[in-house]
């Protein structure tokens, strides 16, 4: 009844549950469905007869845990291992083994004395939830079989193949392709560091190296003769030419300043701002040249095809549970280093003691913080259409669709409007080399909101991989006003430090211990490993430079 879902396993039932299902099927679930009581927070309980407190059949007590027998509807309590009337019930009545924990609407096997799981039961719970929810399903969208549209990049099959072969043969260097220093033109390490990361983002690299932004054609048709993608593409050619002397990206700087007047100056600049600005400029130029058809709402420029994901924002009314959902595209995630401690999942409190600086110390912690429900302040009461007045609400972010290349930006600056100063948050942030983004997907977040029921939530069953691999880290050292950017790149399983003109080999540990500012992860797909050599890349029969990406909606 539910779609294929890679993110959780369906646990095997105990023999008592299996027996119960055999003998009673869905009868019990369906008959108690009316007793389910849903709270606005997505929790379910059994309320039964509202006029009186449920009491245990054996002792008339109402304390401890109450269990509702699925066969005879009697209630038994369990206060302690010595006073377990639920077990007693299963022993006195033959076959009455499966009950429902009334407070949480969870299946309980009285003989095994353990919580058990059945997708059919969860479906009964979720159906009730969906029926009861104010109007719009509260973000629980049950998706039927939707044809996954596959996004394909325009392939230039023959050219790419030839290009790769040519480059492979000409190589004298034993080093991976594309390692070349970038000269600092005067306070431009912010630009050099981002360039190194972009130069080695495989989809971007392949696009420009196979001349898919055709510079000759562009020069002819471009009216103003200024094209940032052209200049950007020229850098790819220069860096992958095999030349080992450091390259001066002067033309790109000039081009960029022409287009971004507000950022054009010889002064302290921010790498992240440069990154966003570059993507904007590339997008603008491609939109100009080839306006995208808005049929699927997605932009087809290379910048967005590689970096753009979809972020979902749910705002829930605390009183009635009405949820309003919006989705917006984003090219990166900017994460706060909040005041909380490390990995804040419910399950793992094997988390370490907080560091002296008492902040999030792991990237996963930042992602948890990012997707945590946040109570909007009372000065931000939103109008709830169901309650028809302003109510307190909860906001929660999640990722509706992951990009091909995921850029995670750490907000290491702190701006205090009261004290009118900014400072840099220097503490170390642990970041993994391998990252699974599944817990941050909308399907996981929404599922968690409704008690992690076994149910097909929106976005489930998508065949897109959620596993990512780190390939570049832009680090910052020094103070807010004066510091230095350096990028670490992973090529062929070796890490390299790109410090302006100086390319050196470094150990994995150096990278782990560095102060990450922007981390670039790429989807783990069989075709793209950061460890693979460019000219060993298998080319798919259709010549697509890379594997197509499936959409979720």
């Amino acid at each position, binding site marked *: 009844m539910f779609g294929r879902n890679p993110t*959780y*396993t*369906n646990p095997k039932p105990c023999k008592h549950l299996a027996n119960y299902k055999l003998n009673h099927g869905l009868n019990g679930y369906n008959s108690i469905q009316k007793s389910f009581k849903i709270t606005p927070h997505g929790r379910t309980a059994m309320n039964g007869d509202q006029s009186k407190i449920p009491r245990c059949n054996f002792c008339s007590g109402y*304390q401890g845990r109450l269990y509702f027998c699925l066969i005879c509807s009697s209630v038994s309590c369990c206060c302690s291992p010595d006073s377990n009337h639920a077990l007693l019930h299963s022993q006195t009545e033959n076959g009455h083994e499966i009950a429902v924990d009334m*407070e*949480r609407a*969870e299946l309980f096997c009285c003989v095994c004395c353990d*919580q058990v*799981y059945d997708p059919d039961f969860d479906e009964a719970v979720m159906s009730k939830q969906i029926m009861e929810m104010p109007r719009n399903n509260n973000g629980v969208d049950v998706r039927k079989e939707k044809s996954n549209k596959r996004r394909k990049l325009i392939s230039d099959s023959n050219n790419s193949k030839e290009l790769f072969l040519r480059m492979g043969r000409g190589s004298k260097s034993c080093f991976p392709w594309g390692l070349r*220093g970038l*000269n600092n*033109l005067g*306070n431009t390490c912010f630009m050099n560091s981002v360039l190194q990361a972009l130069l080695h983002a495989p989809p971007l690299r392949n696009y420009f190296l196979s001349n898919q932004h055709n510079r000759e054609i562009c020069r002819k048709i471009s009216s103003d003769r200024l094209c940032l993608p052209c200049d950007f593409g020229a850098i790819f050619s220069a860096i992958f030419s095999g030349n*080992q002397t*450091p390259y*001066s990206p*002067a033309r790109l*700087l*000039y081009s960029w*300043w022409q*287009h*971004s*007047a*507000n950022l054009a*100056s*010889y*002064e*302290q*600049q*921010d*790498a*992240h*701002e440069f990154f966003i600005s570059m993507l*904007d400029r590339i997008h*603008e130029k491609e939109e100009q040249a080839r306006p995208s058809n808005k049929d699927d709402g997605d932009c087809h420029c290379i910048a967005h095809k590689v970096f753009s994901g979809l*972020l979902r924002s749910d705002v829930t009314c605390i009183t009635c549970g009405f949820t309003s959902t919006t989705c*917006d595209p984003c090219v990166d*995630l*900017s994460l706060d280093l909040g005041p909380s401690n490390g990995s804040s*999942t*419910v*399950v*793992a409190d094997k988390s370490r003691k907080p560091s002296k600086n008492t902040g999030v110390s792991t990237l996963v912690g930042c992602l948890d913080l990012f997707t945590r429900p946040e109570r909007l302040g009372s000065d931000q009461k939103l109008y709830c259409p169901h309650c028809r007045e302003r109510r307190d609400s909860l906001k929660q972010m999640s990722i509706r669709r992951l990009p091909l290349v995921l850029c995670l930006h750490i*907000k290491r600056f702190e*701006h205090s409007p009261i004290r009118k100063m900014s400072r840099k948050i220097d503490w*170390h942030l642990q*970041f993994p080399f391998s990252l*699974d983004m599944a817990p941050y997907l909308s399907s996981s977040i929404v599922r968690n909101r409704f008690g*992690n029921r076994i149910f097909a939530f929106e976005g489930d069953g998508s065949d897109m991989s959620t596993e990512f691999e780190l390939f570049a880290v832009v680090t*910052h050292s020094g103070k*807010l*006003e*004066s*510091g*230095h950017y350096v990028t670490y790149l992973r090529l062929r399983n070796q890490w390299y430090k790109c410090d302006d003109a*100086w390319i*050196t*080999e470094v150990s994995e*540990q150096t990278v782990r*211990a560095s102060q990450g500012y922007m981390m670039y992860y790429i989807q783990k797909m069989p075709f793209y490993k950061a460890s693979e050599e460019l000219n060993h890349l298998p080319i798919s029969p259709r010549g697509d430079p890379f594997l197509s990406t499936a959409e979720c909606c």
Partner: protein
Amino acid sequence: MSVPNDDNTSHSQLSSQFFGDLLDSIIVDVASECHRIARLGLDCNLEEGEEEIRLSAQARVRVADPSNSSEVNSKYVVDIFGQTHPAVANEIFECMNCRRSIVAGRFAPHLEKCMGKGRKARLKATRSSSAAQNRYSRGSPISTYSPYSHSTSVNQLSNGAPGVSGEEYAEGAFEDP
């Protein structure tokens, strides 16, 4: 167990009892939630995550140890191709704006003046020209998602000049806005 009507029962006893019941309920609540997460395999990334954390902690210890440090002043080291480079890049090329020959390491400050950009130049710029230029900067609907990409110029992390030469710093870093 019925609630005693006896007035002698202290309030604190009753409160303790209720508190205990509430606490028990919450504990089972959390346990039940964790049980479900564990059984459904929703926490399968825990061990991987812990391994990464352990590796990072190890790495930090190794790197902090001064005897391990091979990273001296990186400006004087030899790169992987066996080359050394001066602190200020000395490649010379032609400025695309004015056609003069410029040293790479001083290209940015030159270009700033040459193009009439930069703080001082901008202050002199007329309102109309900067308004026209602002239309092209970071305004497209697809690209600005303000909650997710900071855009205030105050919140920048800055880079510095590549090291040795004091002149670069003086020119760029400590000017008054």
